[in-house]
């Protein structure tokens, strides 16, 4: 049996797997392995899980067939849950339990999913390696000396060592896709506005989407089906979405989006493309696009600006940790200085700079203009063509390898930020291994073409044979 959520779910419905047994085995696995991997920040109690499992069993016995019946799901700790703390990977929110559930959490619970724990991430999702978590780095189950990617590194790792069978990440500039590609798992960043952001602690609101993560394309499709849809609590969620799929597949490669990748990654991509051609899928090679070389600075300028604003609220006055000081001003300064990590404070400062009078025109305003140009260009290209590129230009780095050099660290996101700037869907999936390390490829389609990406993904899964794989460790 392939270890996918969809197949487990079917066995549960048929009565071949007992939910309680299944979920307690997961808990056991976490207890055994998570000390070294550190995928989770918090885990549900055994008692809570048993009760939840029994309730779902009763539902099934009464004839219901919930879409996620009994499946163990891990959730990135930047998505609000009223039954587990939600820390955003930051010390400043240590012990904060929101009084409400994110819309996606409500939907998962309604469909019988079991949320087993909250996963590790870079503080406030700011990072690409999960090394910036206040709760320690997450290690890659395929090689414990290497990072699991980020910022949804905990989610990806929890899937790849089998602690969870589905996971929710968030993707602001590749945060779900990058860790997926480093851990031989799958991530789908949906079209902006397809999934409600209500309850997602924001890093950069205009860029991010909650993103399903899994060990197969089918599983991604299943989780997306559960969480998508208009939400009146999120003004940016889109009502009455019409699917906008391609009539036939055409895959486009832009040389600019491949050239600077490491050799194993390039060859993995070209290999895959060759096999796709053999399957009869048309491919097209282009040299360049006009604006995508600006994507990285544009992305980081906008993300930092929005982050500096979103993070202004953490001053300890109503929730989270509070510092000392005899005036409000002194206490807020102390709260922030002693509870926000260095990387977060750096990004806030840069964001403040880009929004300040005298700098705003050259930075923030210029970036929004650049974003429009990039988006228009990408929308034009993806109209009849699915863009393909590596997810990351490099193989998973060793822990500590990139963290010291911010420019190298930020450059890891060069291919992924495009989809966020343009608001289009992007599917990341494993293409091959190199020296035991997974390599991921991503496909970017036009808005609301998730259906096409999933169908293409199923074809690729067949070609690569990589699906439902768990890292043996």
């Amino acid at each position, binding site marked *: 049996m392939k270890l996918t959520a969809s197949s487990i779910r079917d066995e549960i419905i048929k009565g071949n797997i007992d939910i309680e047994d299944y979920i307690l085995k997961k808990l056991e696995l976490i207890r055994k392995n998570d000390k070294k991997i550190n995928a989770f920040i918090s885990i549900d109690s055994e008692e809570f899980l048993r009760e939840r499992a029994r309730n779902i069993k009763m539902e099934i016995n009464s004839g219901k067939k919930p879409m996620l019946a009994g499946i163990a799901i891990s959730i990135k700790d930047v998505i609000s849950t009223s039954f587990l703390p939600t820390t955003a990977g930051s010390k400043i929110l240590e012990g904060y339990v929101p*009084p409400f559930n994110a819309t996606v959490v409500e939907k998962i619970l309604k469909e019988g999913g079991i949320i087993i724990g909250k996963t590790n991430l870079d503080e406030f999702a700011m990072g690409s390696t999960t090394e910036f978590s206040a709760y320690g780095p997450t290690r890659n189950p395929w090689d414990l000396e290497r990072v699991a990617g980020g910022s949804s590194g905990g989610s990806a790792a929890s899937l790849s060592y089998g602690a969870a069978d589905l996971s929710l990440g968030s993707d602001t500039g590749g945060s779900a896709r990058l860790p997926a590609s480093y851990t031989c798992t799958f991530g789908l960043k949906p079209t902006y506005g397809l999934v409600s*952001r*209500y309850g997602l602690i924001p890093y950069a609101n205009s860029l991010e989407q909650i993103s399903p993560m899994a060990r197969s394309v089918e599983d991604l499709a299943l989780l997306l089906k559960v969480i998508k849809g208009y939400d009146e609590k*999120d003004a*940016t969620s889109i009502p009455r979405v019409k699917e906008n799929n391609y009539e036939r597949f055409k895959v486009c490669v832009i040389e600019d989006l491949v050239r600077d990748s490491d050799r194993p990654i390039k060859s993995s991509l070209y290999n895959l493309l060759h096999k796709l051609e053999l399957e009869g899928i048309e491919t097209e090679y282009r040299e360049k696009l006009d604006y995508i070389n600006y994507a990285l600075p544009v992305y980081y300028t906008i993300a930092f*600006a929005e982050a500096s604003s979103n993070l*202004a609220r953490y001053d300890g006055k109503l929730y989270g940790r509070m510092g000392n000081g005899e005036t409000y001003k002194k206490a807020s300064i102390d709260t922030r200085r002693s509870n926000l990590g260095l990387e977060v404070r750096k990004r806030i400062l840069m964001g403040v700079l880009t929004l300040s009078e005298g700098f705003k025109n050259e930075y923030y*305003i210029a970036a929004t203009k650049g974003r429009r140009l990039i988006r228009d260009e990408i929308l034009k290209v993806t109209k009849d063509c699915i863009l393909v590129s590596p997810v990351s230009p490099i193989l998973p780095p060793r822990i500590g390898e990139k963290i010291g050099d911010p420019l190298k660290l930020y450059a890891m996101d060069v291919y992924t930020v495009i989809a966020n700037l343009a608001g289009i869907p992007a599917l990341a999936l494993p293409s091959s291994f190199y020296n035991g390390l997974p390599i991921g490829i991503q496909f970017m389609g036009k808005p609301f073409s998730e259906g096409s990406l999933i169908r293409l993904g199923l074809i690729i899964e067949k070609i690569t044979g990589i699906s439902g794989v768990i890292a043996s460790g």
Partner: protein
Amino acid sequence: MVELEYKIGLEIHTQLTEAGTKLFCGCDSNYRKYKPNTNVCPVCLGLPGALPVPRKRPIILALAVAETFNCKIPESMVFTRKHYFYPDLLKNYQITQYEKGGGMPVCLGGMLKYYDPDLDLWKKVKLRRMNIEEDPGKTEYSEGNILASEFAYVDYNRSGVPLLEVVTEPEIPTPRDARKAVEYLLLTMEYIGAMNPRLEGSFRVDANISVEGGERIEVKNIGSTLDLERALRYEIFRQRKIIEGKGIVERETRHWDPVRGITKSLRSKESEEEYLYFPDPDIPMISTEPLLKEIREKSIITPEKIMEKISRIGINRKMAWSLVTIKACAETFLEAVSIGADPIISSRILAIDYKGHLRKSGMSLYKRENWPDPVALKKISDLIRNKAYTYDEIKYNIIPKLVSDPKMIHITLPEKASPEKLITEVMNEERKAIRDFYQGKKEALDYLVGKVLKKAYGKAMDPKKVRNLLEEFLYKNSNIY
């Protein structure tokens, strides 16, 4: 000595108290009736991950106000974040509107036309802009002020309540005009159904005053229109004195102390503050066209239109204004007239005598249920018009009853007593008072009128008529007594 010229500009923050909801969540816009921190939700508490969703009604109301004052309304408006750290501001940014940096407010310039009843003149002041924004929470100090208190308490019930900020150009001629303009704005917003200006804290005014030869001074925290006039007069006096004494008036922000009737320096403003404005990425821009279409389907009622309507009926403008200033009163009047009540008689009853009685009895003038049923008003005006009763007979006999029971429709009229017969009776009984009268004590006449009215108890009698008859009687019979 020639007095130094000055300029006044206003920023009027009005709460859309009648919007029903807060600006971005479903909590109540009228927060006053709740215990501290109970009219709140994740959105207005600014909890991480909660998202603002613009509510329709506050936006419709703000657009209706903008439309009324002939604003240039953009095709779509944008909400902008304005950042500053403060205990009562949960997100440490306020969601507002701003015309720069990709922002777009609800109104980009208009004209506030307001009525000056003393001069019977419509005046105008240019509006620079209007913007919709959220109110912050409220800080209260254990001892009432920040210096004496050990504790400060923050109540977030007000957090997120919709405000409409109206900014005028600095061209208001006098403190009195400032007051009249604000009063007219508030009255208009009441007619539109946007706010109840009598609710505590429902509006605040910041005033800018610059006197020739000095820099601009901003006075904050003015909570009533009377205080606005007082604060402006005080500031003009203060600044003129400094400048005339060869002193320097530097740019600063001052605070109005309504108890002592003075302004105090709050901070000097050396440079523009840094608010890091940028469009709120959680809120897509809102196109105004469909909302305006909805507004235009029903015509907006304004004091000006009602004033015109009442004047056309034949009521003089002073009386018309007196009706218009109280919306409930004007509505009662127009309904009564529409079912055939005499306009002149009705306007006099409502705007003068009924209003006076309401005031005396301590009842609210602003509640529609305290004003008479239009049907009763028609019946009464018919009685006077048909000369069955005089105005004063009605005024003394019916109006007090109506005030104590405004729902009354059946006007039971007292039997008419014949004053002549009662006068003869009183004349026979009150010899001493009659003598006093002849000896020049004029108040004896009041006493005699009183006696006659007392005898007529329960029956309709017109005191003026009694007085005239008595006087006539006394002069005719001066030889007898």
